[in-house]
């Protein structure tokens, strides 16, 4: 499988506190990789480094073979993201936000692309509504529409369904699965919802104290480590870190 994201020996420390400690992994085209771990494990730090808004202390990040440190803009053209903590400007309408970000990402045939996404994410009645007055679930749908604007080859999703009701969350998972299945790109997904992980992820990485403790298929990993469920495995890893990167 051709990789869309290749991370090697990535490390980041804030002062003396190590946030990410020499992790390496890849995300293949068409693959959905879950990045799991307790709060403070280093998930968001990792995503911020891949997004180019945080510089690693060492290690490398390649997006479709393009070194992010050396060629920031070309690498980020192939990427997009949605995160609960990064809503779109609330003082612009849905359509205005999509237009502004479409221009930032150099999207061709922007007007048609925006209309297609508005339809796809069922945002028709919010087209001319300011994002700041939308519910958190609606804002998430707008953020996901923005994340799909440039048809990214690498999609980063940081707890994308955290504020959605179960029906909306299932719909969103379906869309993301569809996106990956189309072979257009790969997805790196962080969540604390283990049902969601089982539903969408082809592979998971368990992060704890900035290190990858486990990696594998979320359906078979619990049994391999003597745990009844993925949630129990998550708790076990969070409480008593295993030897890094067993499979």
């Amino acid at each position: 499988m051709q990789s869309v994201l290749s991370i090697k020996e990535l490390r980041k420390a804030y002062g003396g506190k190590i946030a990410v400690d020499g992790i390496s992994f890849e995300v293949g085209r068409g693959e959905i990789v879950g990045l799991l771990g307790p709060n403070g494990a280093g998930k968001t730090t990792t995503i911020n480094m891949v997004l180019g808004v945080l510089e690693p202390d060492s290690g490398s990040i390649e997006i479709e073979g393009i070194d992010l440190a050396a060629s920031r803009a070309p690498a980020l053209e192939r990427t997009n993201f949605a995160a609960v903590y990064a809503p779109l400007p609330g003082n612009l309408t849905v359509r205005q936000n999509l237009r502004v970000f479409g221009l930032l990402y150099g999207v061709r045939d922007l007007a048609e692309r925006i209309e297609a996404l508005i339809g796809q994410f069922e945002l028709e009645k919010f087209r001319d509504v300011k994002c700041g007055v939308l519910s958190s679930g609606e804002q998430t749908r707008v953020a996901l529409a923005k994340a799909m604007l440039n048809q990214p080859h690498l999609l980063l999703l940081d707890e994308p369904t955290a504020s959605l009701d179960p029906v909306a969350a299932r719909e969103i998972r379906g869309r993301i699965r569809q996106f990956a299945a189309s072979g257009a790109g790969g997805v790196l997904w962080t969540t604390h919802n283990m049902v969601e992980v089982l539903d969408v992820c082809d592979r998971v990485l368990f992060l704890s104290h900035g290190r990858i403790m486990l990696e594998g298929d979320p359906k078979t990993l619990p049994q391999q480590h003597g745990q009844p469920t993925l949630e129990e495995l998550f708790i076990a890893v969070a409480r008593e870190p295993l030897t890094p990167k067993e499979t």
Partner: protein
Amino acid sequence: MTWLRPVIAVMLRYGYLLRGTPARWIPIFAWVGIDMVLWGFLTKYLNSVAASGFNFVPALLGAVLLFDFFTRVMQGVAGVFLEDVWSRSFLNLFASPLTIPQYLTGLVATSTMTSLISLVVMLVMATALFGLSFFIYGLALVPFLMILFLFGVALGVFTAAMVLRLGPSAEWLVWPVPAIISPFAGVFYPISILPHWMQFIGRLLPISYVFEGLRTIIQGGTVPWTALITGGGLAVMYVLLACWFFRRVFRHAVRTGILARYSAESVG
């Protein structure tokens, strides 16, 4: 065209904000309009009581107009940047392919548009209401405006970098800068009457050469082209320094994580 698309995005975003919020038009129209009315009547009054027959309109009202143009450019650049601070847009903006030169070009281009509107408003009011004729400055008006524009850009970019470095609470640094500079720049008086240490600072400010030149022309002297070239050279140097400073602060913000966690709670 590809390089310009993100620049247009930055401009378009502010255009949408202007269209949607009448309050954002106030600094573009209202403050400069109030200044023209206030200083226009003051100069008329001074003309009526001064025995010398000196025309205060081109000296004082002209100086206020030019200084307001400089202020609008500076606050225009910083103001567009602050819109991103207020709407917490940094993560979405800088996780996109937008580069720093494109972002700064967008800020400056947006400020240019709004400042030109302010300039036209001031010119119309000063000419129609108080008989200020810009023909009196002749060709020197072009370098006057260029120097004021460039120094406004430099200070706007510099203060934006300061807010990025120190956090949203450093916003208060942006607004008083023109007022702090004005005593040194000799907007209303020759810098020769200032104490030596203030004169020294005044000579480092490109806009002081504009106001000195303005007074020279009004008093019947020739255009001080050498001084204007000095002022222009200083202004260009400050623009380059400000852009370098912004880039350096941005890199620091990316390295330390300030950019990823930028908010009043995490910075400043």
